[in-house]
């Protein structure tokens, strides 16, 4: 792994180019959570009654927070990176400078994490404005920290997919067969306890399930010791994905 501080330069390049897209992406990041919170939270919530003594929105918001991070960082490392690699040949220019292939890929992952963090924080802001408040200020800060870990995980996983992708179409397999089901089987919208046993087992293999559990606990400030295991799953998985993602991208970039 030939990583260096130049990751920051790659991040900076993305930030400079982002200036042009900042308004539309902020709008999307604001409208999407509103859409979720209004349709699911208020619409469905009206039929849901109380969840552990609180309105449904308190159940929904922490899950939607991490899933929006998942979506943003995934899409950035799928489409964003693919365009830069194939259509704009940006990586080819980068690796001819002292920036290594590893720096370039890690820089893009860092950027995707930032995008995820922006989406997640905007979502949190909307929730707060709607009166759905995290347990404490510390909860809010911990949630931001969690978003970073979740972002690294999904950005790195997406990098692995991008490294073997022949075209845009290939991404559909990943988004439709893995990411979308994950959204529904990870306990974001409803609790998992009424699922049959096999589905519960399945959901444990989905990284988002663990992120949602932590997010919900942090949001409410009601911690339990099992969360350490959830966190370890995310940590170990993301270290592996980060390593493999960079290695595989390097293999594609350097011939």
């Amino acid at each position, binding site marked *: 792994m*030939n990583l260096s501080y*130049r990751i920051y*330069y790659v991040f*900076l*390049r993305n930030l*400079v*180019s982002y200036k*042009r897209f900042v308004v539309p992406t902020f709008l999307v990041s604001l409208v999407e959570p509103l859409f979720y919170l209004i349709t699911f939270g208020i619409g469905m919530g009206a039929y849901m009654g109380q969840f552990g003594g609180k309105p449904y929105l308190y159940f929904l918001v922490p899950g939607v927070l991490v899933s929006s991070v998942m979506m943003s960082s995934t899409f950035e490392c799928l489409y964003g990176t693919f365009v830069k690699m194939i259509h*704009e*040949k*940006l990586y*080819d*220019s*980068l*690796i*001819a*400078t*002292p*920036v*290594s*292939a590893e720096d370039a890929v890690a820089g893009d992952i860092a950027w995707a994490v930032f995008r995820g963090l922006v989406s997640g924080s905007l979502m949190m802001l909307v929730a707060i404005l709607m009166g759905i408040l995290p347990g404490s200020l510390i909860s809010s800060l911990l949630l931001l920290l969690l978003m970073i870990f979740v972002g690294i995980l999904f950005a790195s996983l997406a990098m692995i997919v991008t490294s073997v992708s022949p075209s845009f179409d290939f991404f559909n397999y990943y988004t439709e067969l893995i990411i979308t089901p994950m959204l529904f089987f990870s306990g974001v919208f409803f609790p998992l306890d009424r699922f049959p046993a096999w589905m519960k087992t399945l959901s444990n293999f989905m990284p988002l399930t663990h992120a949602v559990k932590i997010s919900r606990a942090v949001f409410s400030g009601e911690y339990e010791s099992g969360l350490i295991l959830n966190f370890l799953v995310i940590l170990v998985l993301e270290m592996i994905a980060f390593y493999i993602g960079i290695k595989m991208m390097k293999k594609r970039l*350097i*011939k």
Partner: protein
Amino acid sequence: MSILVSAKDLVKKFGSLTAVDGISFEIREAECFGFLGPNGAGKTTTVRMIHCVSPVTGGTLIVNGLPAHINNRALKKMTGVIPQEIALDNDLTVYENLIVFAHFFDIPKREAKKRIAELLKFVELEAKRNSKIDALSTGMKRRLLVARALLNNPKLIVADEPTTGLDPQARHLIWQRLRQLKSQGVTLILTTQYMEEAQQLCDRIVIMHQGKILKEGLPSKLVEEEIGREVVEVRIPKEEDEKIIQQLSSFSCGHERVGDTLYFYCRDGQGLMKRLIELDLHNYLTRPATLEDVFLKLTGRGLIE
């Protein structure tokens, strides 16, 4: 003069395909060294190994005293690359393209700004400073690539077919700039398919074909040695070749038949021309021998795909 790049038995394989097949060459400091060859000859693959973006499969390749390697940041730092493809950052403006690139080389911001102003002047793009890349012509894009390659004050410049697709004005401007850099002591490595470009810029060239070096030398000497001074093209039916060649045998010119044309390669074409007039043959053309003749003679006049 000291040697900047030295390759010995250099090999590059992509799976079962051998792109560079055991070549050896030396490039001196402050010279312009050209790699000529048809598509797929291995020119680009060779220079990509020199500027450390492609790993060497076999043999040795030393650049500025260090082995070329994809992790050799020191070599990348002293090299400027003008790529074959127009790989500019389309999301950024002309100025942003340069300032972002300056970061990659650790150039401090104040210095970078000064350098960018100089370079935009050098490539005559000052007026386009804040334009988006889409708004530039191909010539402007190529000039911007030249400016970008110079940000780090490179000791070595690798130009991979730098004038592909340009009109004559734009092409001459790039040639002038490259010559100017060479006169400042920069070493220039050029790959090209344009023989005129090689003759305009290069001190020494190698002609590559199918991964091997066929010839090496000074452009003018190669022409003289391989072809002579003049080429006489005679367009006659193939059946008459034998007769004509015999009639012209006293001039000791080399000859070659390709398609509808019989080529004579002569030290002096005057006598041969006179004789052609006497023979009442009109469909001929005489011209000075060029590097293109050498190139075609060595790599074959047929299409290479």
